[in-house]
Every structure is written in C-alpha cells, then in structure tokens.
C-alpha cells in the first residue's frame, strides 16, 4: 500500500475558470484519469458574465487520494458565483487535510456542519468588497442591498473524497477503499462499480443550499461508501442533466459538442461535469 501522505506531496489540482469555457483532462500515474468540463450558459457567454458553477479537484499523483467539489451558485442570491468558488475551495481544502477518511458519517458530518457555519463570516466579508455600479437603477440597488444583507451569497454543492490503496505489485486499477460524500442541493453524482452497476449518491433536494448569511438552509447530507473496484465517478450540475447519462460513452470532442448544443435551448444553464475513471492505464476515459 502506498503512503498517502508522501504521495500527496505533489498534488494535482484542477479547477474551472469563471470566464473560460473548456474541457480539461489529467492523468494520475496511469491509474486514474480526470476530465472536467465547464461551460457558461448562453446568457453569460453573450454578456461576458462569469460562470456560476465552480469545480475543483485535488488528487495525489498516484491517484490514491482524490478530494473534489462541484458547486452551483444560486442565481437569485447576491452574486452566487462567489459562494460557489469560496465554498468549493474551502471544502476541498478541508477534505484534503483530513488525515484519513472517517469510518462513520456521524462525527464527520457534525464537524463539517460546524465549519459550514464558521465559514459564513469570511464569505460575507467578500460581499462587502463589491460596490454596485453608479448607474444601477434605484430599485435594483434596493434589491441588491437586501440580498446582500438578508440572503448573502448562496450555493448548492456536492463534495467528497476517495481514499484508495493499490495492491502490492498490482499493475491493475487502484483498489478503492473508501469514499465520503457531502452535499446540499441538486448537484448529482453516480459511481460505477466493477460490476458495471451505477450507484446514485444523492437525492434532489433543490431547496437545500449554503448561505453566507444563514449558513445551512436545509439539511446537510452525507454518505460513506466502501466498495472495492469502483471504476468511475461522475458529478454534474443541473445544467448538464440532459447529457449526464451519455457522458461515460462520449469522447472529449463529443462531450464538448453535446454541451455546446445545450446553448441553443431556452433553458441553457451553466454546465459542469467532473468525470473520474479509475482504470487499467487511464485510457478508458
């Protein structure tokens, strides 16, 4: 079994860009591959506005540890993209700093609830650095100030961490030991097992979200997963719902093309897909 601490000395970090639409790919020592698709909605692209989704993944080069988060800022809050970036980074830092994954959900969930409440102050301070443009109509200014003080910036998210261990001398894919997920809201995730079966990780509680003013709005959900030979992890924001089922079978070019096609729909929304494959040589993805 590799030493997870040593292996994490040179982590690989992938994160989405607020203004750049792209598909990124990284390979982890031949045992895992990650691709991360990020595309702003048609409205945002037309106006040069930032993506309200944000995703970050930090992996040990040997693929033995992976911490990740996909977040979708709430558009009707005050600059929801701020919450998405802030919280995703905090969550991944917190997850990556854990010495080992918790054996049970209970203690970890309680600790995380405490952090989610503590982080409000720092996030809310970021909002006060934003000055509204002088030309903002009076009623809009009134709404923005009410949002800033009453709701803050809000986001839904799904984050987690996998710890894996490679069998001695094994040349095959990493033998996944444990995974831990936490989420609020409607970011979706699935894991593919060695049998080919897909396991859905989350529910679809649209109302739950994290707020820089109110903290936890709704319940924080967590789930501990212990499986051998997990092959694939898929996480996507609701803007990618229409193409999520097809992602495993799509090449990078096909995935990008299918995402671009979503821009034509009236319901065009920001799209984020995190696709991780633990496979023989990283080429299954």
């Amino acid at each position, binding site marked *: 079994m590799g030493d997870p601490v040593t292996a994490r000395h040179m982590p690989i970090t992938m994160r989405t860009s607020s203004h750049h639409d792209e598909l990124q790919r990284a390979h982890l020592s031949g045992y895992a591959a990650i691709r991360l698709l990020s595309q702003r909605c048609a409205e945002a692209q037309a106006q040069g506005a930032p993506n309200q989704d944000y995703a970050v993944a930090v992996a040990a080069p040997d693929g033995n540890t992976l911490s990740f988060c996909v977040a979708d800022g709430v558009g009707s809050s005050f600059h929801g993209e701020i919450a998405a970036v802030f919280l995703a980074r905090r969550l991944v830092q917190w997850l990556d700093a854990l010495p080992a994954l918790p054996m049970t959900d209970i203690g970890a969930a309680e600790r995380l609830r405490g952090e989610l409440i503590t982080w409000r102050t720092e996030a809310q301070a970021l909002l006060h650095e934003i000055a509204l443009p002088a030309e903002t109509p009076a*009623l*809009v200014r009134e709404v923005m100030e009410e949002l800033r003080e009453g709701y803050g910036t809000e986001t839904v998210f799904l984050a987690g961490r996998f710890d894996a261990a490679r069998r001695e001398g094994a040349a095959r894919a990493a033998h996944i030991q444990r995974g831990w997920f936490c989420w609020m809201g409607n970011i979706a995730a699935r894991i593919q097992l060695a049998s080919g079966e897909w396991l859905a990780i989350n529910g679809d509680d649209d109302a739950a979200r994290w707020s820089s003013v109110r903290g936890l709005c709704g319940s924080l959900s967590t789930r501990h997963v212990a499986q051998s030979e997990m092959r694939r992890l898929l996480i996507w924001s609701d803007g990618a719902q229409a193409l999520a089922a097809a992602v495993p079978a799509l090449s990078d070019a096909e995935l990008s093309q299918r995402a671009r096609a979503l821009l034509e729909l009236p319901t065009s929304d920001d799209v984020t897909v995190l696709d991780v494959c633990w496979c023989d040589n990283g080429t299954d993805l």
Partner: protein
Amino acid sequence: MYSQPATTLTPALIIYLIDASDSMNEVSGDTTRIEMVNTALRTAVKDLVRRSMRDGVVQRRYKLAIFAYSTRVIDVLGGVRDLPELLRTGVPELSAGGVTDTAGGFGAVEKLLKEHIKDFQHSPAPLVCHLTDGVFTTTDPSHTIQRIQELRVTDGAVLVENVYFADNMLRRPVNNWQQWEGVTRPHEIADEYARFLFSLSSPLPETYRQNINNYGYHLQPATSLFFPGVHPDLVRLAFAISSATQLK
C-alpha cells in the same frame, strides 16, 4: 403544462389589470386599497428583479404590461415592457378615481394579448392579474375573460387571477393568512360578486403552487387563482403568485 421557466429567450408575460375607480381610495386597515396595490406591485417587481438577476445584471426574463381602469382604461406602461426597461423609468404609482369599467379593462387586455401572444408561444403561459374592489358598472366582462382564457401557448392557456377587496367575503374567518390554504369551491365564499370572480379565475397550476409554497405559504392542491384582498399579506401573496413561474 405550466412548467416552462422564464428565460431571456422565452420571457414570461405578466399583465396587471388594476381597478383604479374611486372606491379604491377607501381605507383598508391603516392604508387605502390603492396604496396596498401600489405597495404590492412594487414588491412584486422587486421579486421579479431577484428572479432575473445574474452577476448583478437584471436579465430580460419578464415582460410586463399594466392597465388601470376606471371610467376609461389607461395603458400605464404604453404597451409591453421588458423588466430592465421598466426599472430605468421606475415602477409607476397608481391613483384612483371614476367608475368601474371592468369590461373595458379586460377588453384592453384581450387586445394586447391577441397582438402579442405569437411572441410568447414557447414562453410560460401569460398571466393576467386583476385587482378590483367593486362590481362592474358597465357591461359584464365574463365573455371577454373567457375568451382570454381560451388563448393558449405551448405551456398552457392564459391564466386569469382575480384579487377582490371586500370585507367578510369568506364563510370561515382566517386567523393566520400565512397558513391560508386558498379557495377551492364556491361555497367557501359568502359574497356574491366574489363568487362571480371566483368562477372566472383560472386554476392555480401545481408548479406555481409548489413554487410559492417554498416561500412558506400553504396553498393546497386544486386551489384557484382567486384571492381575497382583505389583508396586505394576501395581496402580496397574490402578486407573488403572478411571478411564480419555474426558475431555470
């Protein structure tokens, strides 16, 4: 049905038809009926702004028209206006005076809808939010209202919502308006004209009901788009319903 979200490509059309006859100057609680309407209208526009915001910019997800009727009908905004356009000029404040030409008001709404409905074929179903405090004093508007309700887009038929200002119109008194479940049957209403307006009110779409209940209300299934305007909270609810389209 009634599931299309309001987006910049498929904006939602909301038409406010407001009785601005002399009786709307009557006192209601510590304000007047017309002032209650002005306050609720402003709050509704603020809610639309919240639903339309992205990166601090109000998107063109809603289009509005406002008609005020008394002896004559006034197109307050001069036609259909984008929300950002309305915000640049400000939310108008209505004043009251004259008789109650309800048929004239709905006639103006019907004319505007027939002219513009082709532009909203893939948008949420247009909604007409009508507020009144008294019986019409000219012709019966029923047929006009029914013709409006027969107009359709892909998302569904045009919705007509009625808000009626009158005392003691419900058979059972309501102690907590936040918990009010809505009106589902005519016999819940004691006032004859209220029953008339109820009969001309569209059903509340289930998607809108779920959306508005997310804000802490308790409207039950199969309730109608009919609201007693007896309390500021209910007037606010009625206006909030007018913008309860799906959020994308």
